[in-house]
C-alpha cells in the first residue's frame, strides 16, 4: 500500500483525499465523520485546543481499530486521519471515512471508529478557555479499565 490509511498529521485535514482512499467499485456507500472544534461545551467557551499524541502508537492503534472493523463489518474499507497541534474553533481534528457495499455497515463502522478512538488511541486534548486551561481525560468520567488496559479485540 503506497498511501497510509491511518495517519496523525500536524496540518489541516482535507476530507476529499480520505474519501478517495476508501472509494472503490464495490462501494455503494461512503460515510465520513468530521470532528470539529466546538466553541461552547456547556457554559464554557473554548478559545483554542491543543492536541498531543504518542504518534507511533497512535498510528498503530488507529490501524488496530481498522482491523477490528474489518472483522466486525467484512468488506468495509476505513481511513482515519487525526490532527495534532493547535486547533482553532471549527478546525477539523479528525476525519473518519468508511466505504461499504451497503449503507448500514458504513454508518455503524464509522460510529464504532470514533467511539474506539476516544477509548484507546493515545491522543490528548488540552482545552484553552478564556480563564484557564486543562488537559481533558474523557475516560475520567467513564468506567476505569478493570484489567488495567483497554480491551483490544484480537
Amino acid at each position: 500500500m503506497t498511501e497510509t490509511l491511518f495517519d496523525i498529521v500536524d496540518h489541516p485535514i482535507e476530507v476529499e483525499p480520505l474519501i478517495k482512499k476508501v472509494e472503490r467499485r464495490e462501494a455503494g456507500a461512503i460515510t465520513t465523520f468530521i470532528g470539529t472544534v466546538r466553541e461552547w461545551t456547556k457554559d464554557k467557551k473554548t478559545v483554542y485546543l491543543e492536541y498531543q499524541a504518542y504518534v507511533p502508537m497512535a498510528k498503530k492503534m488507529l490501524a488496530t481499530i481498522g482491523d477490528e472493523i474489518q472483522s466486525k463489518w467484512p468488506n468495509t474499507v476505513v481511513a482515519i486521519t487525526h490532527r495534532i497541534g493547535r486547533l482553532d474553533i471549527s478546525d477539523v481534528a479528525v476525519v473518519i471515512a468508511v466505504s461499504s457495499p451497503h449503507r448500514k455497515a458504513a454508518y455503524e463502522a464509522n460510529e464504532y471508529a470514533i467511539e474506539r478512538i476516544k477509548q484507546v488511541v493515545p491522543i490528548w486534548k488540552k482545552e484553552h478557555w478564556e480563564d484557564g486551561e486543562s488537559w481533558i481525560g474523557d475516560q475520567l468520567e467513564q468506567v476505569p479499565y478493570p484489567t488495567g488496559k483497554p480491551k483490544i479485540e484480537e
Partner: protein
Amino acid sequence: MIKVLLFAHLQEEVGKHQLEVDDTNITVRNLKDNLQSDYQLRQMDQVMVSVNEEYALEDDVVHDGDVVAFIPPVSGG
C-alpha cells in the same frame, strides 16, 4: 535502561517528556509506583502504561531497552 515517555498533564507535572530509568526487570506496577512517589504525582489509577507501543498489564515485566509510556486517559476525536 528503560526509556519512559510522558504525555499530557504528566509531562507538565514531571516537567519532562522523557525519563531514563536504570531499573530493569521491573513490573509495570512498580515502575508506576516509583514514578508517582519520585514526582509526587496525583493518583495514577487511571493512567495506563504501554511497553513498546502496546498496552501492558500491571504485572507485565519491563526489560532493558524497552520503551514505556505513561498514558493518561485519552481524549482524542
